[in-house]
């Protein structure tokens, strides 16, 4: 398929000498046909179009759980109400993604390629969640440095060799781990709830209830949320379980 061509190039617009504040060897420099390196304005750093909202994550005793709704918003329009924002990667990791949906689909490809190239090596290699989290951080940070971000925030959860892992990466390459995590609105509204509920011996059922309650509050208070969610868990019992989408019960009697 044809490689990217900027609008400026397509129109044949002339380029001008670098301004004093611009570095000469910026990645966006393109070599013109007459062999002279001139500056081109960065064409990336886009805006997100179809977006997913919050993703929540919590560790429990013997595993990790992640929740996200199934909505792709088009600005304020709830346009795609049946999309999956949670993907398993490899055998030990599950990733929930918020932000631009087209960049999420690009990330899906990247994860698939990672898993496929590992499988093709067939050397018994088995990536841990920490490795995958680190890999994603590198991808996101390097894209950010090129002023061409993948406009997403991801929650990476996994379980391997008896250890739970929960990590966060965003479009800037910001990366950290914790016992509870959330992206988007969830980081303001849901994270305090998750923090209150968390304890090292949290059971799977308690974790599920906590996530459902938090997603319910997000549906009440986030205008870009949908009452149709998926919960994915990965733990000691083995295997990644991504639930079918389901709706939460909601309480409206306070309106009376």
């Amino acid at each position, binding site marked *: 398929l044809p490689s990217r061509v900027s609008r400026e190039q397509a129109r044949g617009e002339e380029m*001008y000498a670098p301004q004093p504040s611009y570095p000469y060897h910026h990645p966006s420099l393109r070599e013109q046909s007459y062999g002279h390196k001139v500056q081109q304005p960065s064409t990336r750093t886009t805006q*997100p*179009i179809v977006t997913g909202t919050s993703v929540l994550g919590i560790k429990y005793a013997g595993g990790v759980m992640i929740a996200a709704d199934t909505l792709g918003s*088009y600005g304020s329009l709830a346009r795609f109400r049946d999309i999956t924002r949670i993907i398993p990667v490899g055998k030990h990791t599950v990733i929930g993604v918020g932000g631009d949906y087209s960049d999420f689909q690009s990330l899906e490809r990247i994860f698939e390629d990672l898993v496929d190239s590992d499988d093709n090596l067939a050397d018994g290699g088995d990536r841990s969640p920490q490795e995958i989290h680190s890999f994603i951080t590198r991808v996101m940070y390097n894209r950010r440095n090129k002023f061409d971000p993948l406009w997403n925030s991801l929650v990476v959860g996994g379980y391997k060799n008896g250890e739970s892992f929960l990590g966060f990466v965003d479009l800037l390459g910001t990366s950290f781990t914790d016992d509870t995590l959330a992206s988007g609105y969830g980081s303001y509204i849901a994270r305090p709830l998750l923090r209150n509920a968390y304890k090292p011996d949290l059971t799977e059922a308690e974790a599920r209830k906590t996530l459902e309650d938090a997603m319910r509050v997000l549906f009440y208070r986030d205008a870009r949320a949908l009452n149709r969610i998926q919960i994915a868990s990965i733990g000691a019992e083995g295997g990644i379980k991504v639930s079918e989408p389901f709706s939460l019960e909601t309480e409206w009697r306070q309106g009376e």
Partner: protein
Amino acid sequence: VAGEERRGRDRETEEKMLSAVGVQPAWATPAKAQVPEWMSEEHDMGTSIMAVAFEGGVVVGADSRTTTGSYIANRVSDKLTPVHDRIYCCRSGSAADTQAVSDIVKYYLNAHAMELGEAPRVATAASLFRDLCYNNKNSLQASIIVGGWDAQQGGQVFCIPLGGSLVRQPFAVGGSGSTYIYGYCDSQFKEGMSKEECLKFVRNALSLAMARDGSSGGVIRTCVIDKDGVTREMICGDELPRHYEG
């Protein structure tokens, strides 16, 4: 001014040199100030487009209005473009961008079909559209609905909105007129409709959209795509389904 002579000069020097010979540089006066809106605005397909899948195929439909600002440049345009024998795309956004993209997809799909030795899959066509729209997201204003039939999965509809994501749906609406009919479509759509029911659904929905959206209008074009081929139909502007008109 050719590239050779411009080498190494910045805008200020350029302006000084041009004004010395009495020539306005291209960027000094925006074109829009010199010509009326209808001569300078991009050809936009403010549009209503729709595609609905049924058991044995797909119905794709569109209005026929292309505008330059508020002037109707073409009142009988054809926004349903074949990219292969049983795969159509509905185009909305910039007329130029979507024509260019669908021409490229048609070319690649044709080559792919020759190599494959059989009819290409609808998902393949949709994926090609998506790759172009995603990789050129900063240069394109294209929102496309792909509808078609293949032997493996039957009738399928794929939506590729701005930004270049790809979503498969039982039915999809698009273009500026679509905003007015989300409610209507949500209330009228049922799983398992027949071909005739789908056609009626598309015609009613599009006529409602065209009635309210200034950027949509003209005739309703529909194509029914199934294993036996494509049936093209057109409903003239004076024969559209009519609803409340107050």
